[in-house]
């Protein structure tokens, strides 16, 4: 029994009446023309004035839409969705020292946050300790400074690591930070088999978009695969990669590019896991995704629905995954930082609310809502509370979480979902032709596509074809908000002193032995016997700092910097 939703005779009549409506529409326009020459999404995807069953007439309900928690998962990854448990409210937080951030964590938990998400400062993200000359002026500015296992311990003081899941936005040094997290958890008496969370650990999108670069692509993938392998065997509740479109979008991509490049990154990680000798159903279930929710409401919902369907099909058909869990695109969402304006910042609350609503209707598993002052700085407590309350109001007052995938069957949303999938698949074919993502990155293909889209958008803004309220329409000055957070430059010296004291009390012999073992594993061929994770856990316990481990990586694997193609 097929799943076509409309009978031939009904479609015939629709076509006729659509024609009649279109005549009326054109007649009316001759008196009062349309407001715009062209209507398009924020990604410049053209949209028509009206969608009808004619736009989705080829769609098969069972093949393309179906039920929540069932293949192809267009309508959500769980059969209960938000009826049983709301999405995890997970606010990205990190500022100053480990103590400052720990205080923020407790503040958020006390106000109803349900998961933690850690933002690290730039030296930590790039694999430098606070005392590195390259780290000058950066300590604690855009996140928390973590140099040592002791810092990690302070960061999670009085937080139950078996009860709360923690997401950590860390990429090239992900293996080291994860080793610190696990070592600290075990020191506190928790079982690594029970600890849950996520490391972002998505090196490919760094080459494509965010440029947190340390090692060349090949060894970067090796380290990612080491963590996947270790997670599979030792930390079964951990999401070892958060395959991220967020940063691709922030770099200026379209929604389709975000969808396509991210899914292709996912394909690459699966291939690497299989190459390591893992079976797809052993590890694919622990891969998670991370989307940007931009300001164009329907486009985002369609993107998330299309993403779930695409991933399920790719896992089934390309990788012959058998276990349903391997086919699930579980994802975190963050509202779009790049949609916020410095002008009239209170309007950012409205943008964030719309974006959060799209993420919820798109079926996200967890959500960060940007604070209104996040365009300037790490958010203040005042602003972050509004952002958290935004989620809570949407969840508990507005009724939007009561029915699963409520927009399914909307002719427009279904047609746009199909369009997203179709255009993203064209990119995936192109990437296949180029020989995969690493080869494409080396040719600057995704980088150039994104740069073109970013430049195009900026030009549309300049011409007034895309409107940003307070910026190019009703322009306004940036006000002086009284509660903008300031991170003091003096923090740096305190952190350096602490680091020096830590280094002095280490057992040098034990540390050297641990580092030698780490080096041996890095130099050896990638396999379980040479997996870096056990050696890293020993090394950070013996007092290795983040940079010391990264310096070893850099020595063994070489370094990489962006080539800046145009």
């Amino acid at each position: 029994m097929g799943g076509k939703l409309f009978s031939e005779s009904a479609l015939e009549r629709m076509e006729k009446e659509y024609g009649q409506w279109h005549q009326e529409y054109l007649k009316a326009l001759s008196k009062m023309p349309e407001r715009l020459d062209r209507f398009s999404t924020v990604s410049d995807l053209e949209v028509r004035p009206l969608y009808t069953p004619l736009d989705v007439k080829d769609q098969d309900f069972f093949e393309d839409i179906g039920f929540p928690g069932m293949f192809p998962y267009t309508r959500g990854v769980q059969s209960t969705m938000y009826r049983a448990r709301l999405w995890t409210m997970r606010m990205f937080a990190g500022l100053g020292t480990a103590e400052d951030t720990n205080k923020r964590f407790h503040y958020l938990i006390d106000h109803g946050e349900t998961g933690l998400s850690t933002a690290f400062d730039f030296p930590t993200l790039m694999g430098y300790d606070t005392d590195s000359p390259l780290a000058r002026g950066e300590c604690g500015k855009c996140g928390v400074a973590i140099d040592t296992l002791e810092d990690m311990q302070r960061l999670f003081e009085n937080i139950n690591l078996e009860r709360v899941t923690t997401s950590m936005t860390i990429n090239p040094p992900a293996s080291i930070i994860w080793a610190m997290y696990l070592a600290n958890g075990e020191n506190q008496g928790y079982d690594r088999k029970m600890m849950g969370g996520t490391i972002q650990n998505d090196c490919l999108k760094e080459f494509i978009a965010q440029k947190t670069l340390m090692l060349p692509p090949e060894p970067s993938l090796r380290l990612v695969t080491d963590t996947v392998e270790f997670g599979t065997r030792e930390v079964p509740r951990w999401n070892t990669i958060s395959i991220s479109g967020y940063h691709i979008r922030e770099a200026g991509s379209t929604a389709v590019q975000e969808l396509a490049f991210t899914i292709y990154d996912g394909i690459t990680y699966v291939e690497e896991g299989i190459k390591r000798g893992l079976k797809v159903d052993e590890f694919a279930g622990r891969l998670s995704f991370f989307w940007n929710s931009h300001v164009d409401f329907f486009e985002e919902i369609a993107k998330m629905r299309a993403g779930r369907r695409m991933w399920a099909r790719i896992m089934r058909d390309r990788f012959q995954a058998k276990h349903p869990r391997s086919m699930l695109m579980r994802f975190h969402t963050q509202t779009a930082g790049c949609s916020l304006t410095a002008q009239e910042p209170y309007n950012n609350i409205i943008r964030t609310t719309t974006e959060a609503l799209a993420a919820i209707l798109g079926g996200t598993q967890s959500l960060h809502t940007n604070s209104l002052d996040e365009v300037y700085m790490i958010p203040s407590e005042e602003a972050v509370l509004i952002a958290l309350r935004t989620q809570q109001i949407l969840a508990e007052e507005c009724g939007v979480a009561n029915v699963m995938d409520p927009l399914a069957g909307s002719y427009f949303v279904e047609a746009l979902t199909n369009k997203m999938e179709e255009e993203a698949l064209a990119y995936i074919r192109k990437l296949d032709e180029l020989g995969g993502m690493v080869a494409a990155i080396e040719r600057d293909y995704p980088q150039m596509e994104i740069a073109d889209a970013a430049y195009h958008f900026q030009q549309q803004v300049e011409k007034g074809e895309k409107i940003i309220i307070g910026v190019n329409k009703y322009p306004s000055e940036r006000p002086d908000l009284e509660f903008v957070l300031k991170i003091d430059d003096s923090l740096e010296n305190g952190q350096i002193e602490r680091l020096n004291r830590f280094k002095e009390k280490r057992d040098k012999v034990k540390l050297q032995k641990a580092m030698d073992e780490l080096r041996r594993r890095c130099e050896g061929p990638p396999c379980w016997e040479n997996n870096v994770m056990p050696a890293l856990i020993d090394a950070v316990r013996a007092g290795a700092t983040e940079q010391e481990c990264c310096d070893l990586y850099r020595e063994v694997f070489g370094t990489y910097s962006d080539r800046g193609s145009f």
Partner: protein
Amino acid sequence: MKQERRLRILIAKPGLDGHDRGARVIARAFRDAGFEVVYTGCHQTPEQIVSTAIQEDVDMVGLSILSGAHTYSFPRIMELLRENQAQDITVIGGGIFPLEDIPKLKSIGIKEIFEPGAKLQEIIGWVRANVKPRRALTA
């Protein structure tokens, strides 16, 4: 063939922040405005930026930064330019800065600060009006 003096501009991102969307968009816009743009991209130290500016004999350095680390890198760059007798090179900044930092940055010699929402045409117009190709050394 007449002698032609082209504006040469360095676009660089000091510090460890890799968010290069703005730097890349402005580099392209400058190219399309007819300027020669030396692009060194992300993760540049003040020392690297000043050394490049001098070797490439640029008329202007555009610094893009979003991380808040300008409190260190901007003054350091100005200091190094002075040490190298290269304070005639115009320096501008683009990105996110606390409001109270902007007058401070201008007081150390940063000629202009462009914040989020600044239009490309506005920036190009500013450059045309305020930065002239350096006079020929040998003229």
